């Protein structure tokens, strides 16, 4: 049976892209072997398994190799049918895909940029991030999770916001997640982080602060052009 084949995940402890795959596997109770990659000194295994992007996460199920975290999430959902992550209804599925792409492009990359930049560039990126967060705040519509009563695909896809974003705010000295401006999101963050599976699967905060401080300094000191 396909589901009984060996599952392996190549990852990096601080990566939000890897962590979302782990959340999906843990929610479904799928056993997997985790291999920590040094992304600054990539293994030949990683380069062989993901020659196109050379990035983590890389998901291996038997002989099948899959990269790109959203692609992996949908594969996991289609292969292990317990605890379904995607909604059933095609329109709701489209909304989950639409919003996960939106958050990735407009919030994740913008807030990362804000954290790593200085002065006017930082302010500009922070403003764009806040504008984008306003849009996703509206999507919660009084629900406990984006998926409704239980965690779903979109919660996992944007789950990094509950933990990585506050850390990036601290490291980058910028304010994005104002609880007064975003009450629904603030509530969602609390619910998400309190979920037993998520709570047990977060990287240590103090290590994250140190790591992202270092990354942010490297980025902002890079020569431009």
């Amino acid at each position, binding site marked *: 049976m396909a589901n009984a084949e060996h599952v392996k995940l190549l990852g990096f402890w601080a990566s939000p892209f890897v962590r979302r795959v782990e959340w999906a596997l843990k929610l479904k109770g799928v056993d997997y072997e985790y291999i920590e990659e040094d992304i600054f000194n990539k293994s030949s295994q990683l380069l062989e398994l993901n020659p196109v992007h050379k990035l983590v996460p890389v998901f291996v199920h038997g002989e099948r190799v899959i990269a*790109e975290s959203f*692609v992996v999430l949908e594969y996991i959902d289609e*292969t292990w049918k317990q605890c379904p992550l995607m909604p059933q209804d095609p*329109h709701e*599925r489209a909304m989950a895909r639409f919003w996960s*792409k939106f958050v990735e492009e407009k919030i994740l990359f913008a807030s990362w940029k804000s954290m790593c930049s200085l002065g006017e560039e930082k302010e500009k990126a922070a403003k764009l991030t806040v504008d984008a967060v306003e849009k996703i705040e509206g999507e919660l519509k009084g629900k406990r999770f984006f998926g409704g009563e239980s965690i779903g695909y979109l919660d996992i896809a944007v789950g990094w916001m509950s933990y990585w974003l506050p850390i990036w705010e601290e490291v980058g000295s910028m304010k994005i997640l104002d609880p007064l401006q975003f009450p629904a999101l603030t509530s969602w963050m609390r619910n998400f982080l309190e979920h037993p599976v998520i709570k047990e699967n977060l990287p240590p905060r103090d290590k994250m602060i140190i790591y992202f401080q270092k990354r942010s300094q490297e980025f902002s000191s890079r020569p431009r052009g």
Partner: protein
Amino acid sequence: MGEVKVIGSSKSLFCTRVEWALKLKGVEYEYLEEDLLNKSTLLLQHNPVHKKVPVLVHNNKPVAESLVILEYIDETWKHNSLLPEDPHERAMARFWAKFADEKCLMGAFMAFWKEGEEKEKAIESALESFTFLEKQIQGKKFFSGDDNIGYLDLVMGWIPLWLNVMEEVGGMKLDDPQKFPSLHEWAQNFNEIPLIKDCLPPRDELVNYFNFAVNYNRSTAAAKQ
């Protein structure tokens, strides 16, 4: 199965891929042409987040982002499947679609827009990405297999016409039949399919459109300085 509208622009490759999908499934739809320099209330209402085409409106419910729309179409009208059945093959199709849009299409746009040394760099980068596509199509008639076109062919469908026009207007060569013989052959086969051909905008109109875009963009940039 309900009322279907497509809000689009006839020159947009993102819109044409949606029309191809609907035609492949034999779905009747009403096409609403947008003036992108003077966006309609309908568009702004149905895609307030991005304010872009295409938007598919099915029973008054909008779906935006062309790849999200393709999957929605495939899940709503189940005959003549666009995506394969097998979860791993689906994952591969999604992976390559994302790669093609992010690296090849965006790469081609960069090579089109940029000038001087930046243009050379962009061309080099795009060519590297196209090498991956060439490997994917080698030994197959279509990206989706030997018999019929599917999701990935629709996603790559901009290559035969749009890329060709961008090369002419932008003064660069990417789709070199000597460098990418299999891709070139795929492009010829794809563009011969009647339902594909029927949805293509006239080539001279597309040339005018890209010429206009270049001049508009350069004059806006000059005005800013």
